[in-house]
């Protein structure tokens, strides 16, 4: 018999099915031993994250190009089929049981952050007839102050849906493209993931002396 791909747990690691002190178990525990089964293709396969694996990375900067060190970056997105893991999303697309769609990271001292995720799908919404949101990832950033708080969305370059999206197009034309990530061949991981770069620029500081320097 071929050797099993996955190690079998040694005795004494998992609890037994029946533990009488836990009173729900006597009525809910099999009495006969499980049938030993060699691991077949049915055992060594299983559900995986669906979709195109992505590295999304970039830097959090201020308007002078200075990094925002240790910036908290929070993201959320739908799955590859265009469905959010949220009870309010009733779009008829499959939920991916292995994909929750949320992430949180701290940027490093240079403001650099990175997430590994799945490319989100486009999905319909009811804003107007045949309305589809272009693929996007929601981003939440604080920066150093109440005044620098930003929530935004990252889009993918050359998405044909961008031209029809009133949320993307709510941004003045000259600034819109800042919401598009750029394809980053350097950061791709061969045989594993594509990569996009999305730098985020928060409000910078004016060069004014603080009035309490002498206080």
């Amino acid at each position, binding site marked *: 018999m071929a050797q099993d791909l996955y190690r079998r747990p040694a005795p004494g690691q998992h609890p037994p099915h029946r533990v009488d002190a836990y009173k729900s178990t006597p009525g809910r525990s099999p009495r006969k031993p499980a049938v030993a089964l060699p691991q077949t293709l049915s055992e060594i396969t299983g559900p995986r994250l669906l979709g195109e694996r992505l590295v999304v990375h970039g830097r959090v900067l201020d308007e002078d190009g200075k990094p925002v060190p240790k910036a908290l970056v929070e993201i959320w997105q*739908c799955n590859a089929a265009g469905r959010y893991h*949220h009870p309010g999303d009733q779009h008829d697309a499959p939920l991916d049981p292995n994909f*929750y769609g949320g992430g949180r990271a701290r940027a490093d001292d240079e403001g650099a952050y990175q997430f590994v995720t799945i490319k989100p799908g486009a999905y319909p919404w009811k804003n107007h007839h045949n309305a589809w949101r272009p693929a996007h990832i*929601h981003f*939440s950033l604080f920066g150093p102050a109440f005044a620098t708080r930003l*929530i935004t*969305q990252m889009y993918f370059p050359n998405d044909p849906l961008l031209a029809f999206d009133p949320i993307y197009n*709510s941004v003045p034309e000259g*600034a819109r493209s*800042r919401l598009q990530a750029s394809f980053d061949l350097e950061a791709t991981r061969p045989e594993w993931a594509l990569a996009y770069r999305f730098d985020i620029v928060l409000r910078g500081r004016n060069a004014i002396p603080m009035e309490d320097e002498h206080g």
Partner: protein
Amino acid sequence: MADGLTPSQTIGPFYWGTLVSSYRADLAPLGVAGERIELALTLRDAEGAIISDGLLEIWQANSHGRYNHPEDRRNLPLDAGFEGFGRASTDATGTARFATVRPGPVPWPHGGMQGGGLQAPHINVSVFARGVLNRLATRLYFDGDPALAGDPVLKLVDPARRGTLLAKRDAEGVWCLPIHIGGAHETVFFDG
């Protein structure tokens, strides 16, 4: 890229799992100094309808009037365990609830205690929701506070609209503030 400010976009309706589930709306663990207060902020749209998918964030000084932030360099006590930040989503009644301590006064416009005087105790509020493309910033002041009369920020506001910033105590002692995004009772929002 990176050739200017990153534009703002709406939070959308599906932020809960990431932004809210791991945050507390209770800002002040036991032992934090100050008067314990509860806040109920109710969000309504221009028609007066409840907004049940909004996100509210608050930022405040502690009871001594000290912000837990490096820009606040005054010699006032910081309280262990009190950051001053809270996040909560609005519920089916449009209400987001917080438990915290009543903040102390903070200086105007910024910097030291000398110079510009003090602002009345207040809580800074950020409003996000589906359909709100840019963060809306407002403030919660406490109705009946004698310091309101001299507050330099309230003086910037049309007297007829100042009431939109005043939380009032209900029968249970909860400080309640309706926030109206538009409509006849539109809340005063600030561009700070």
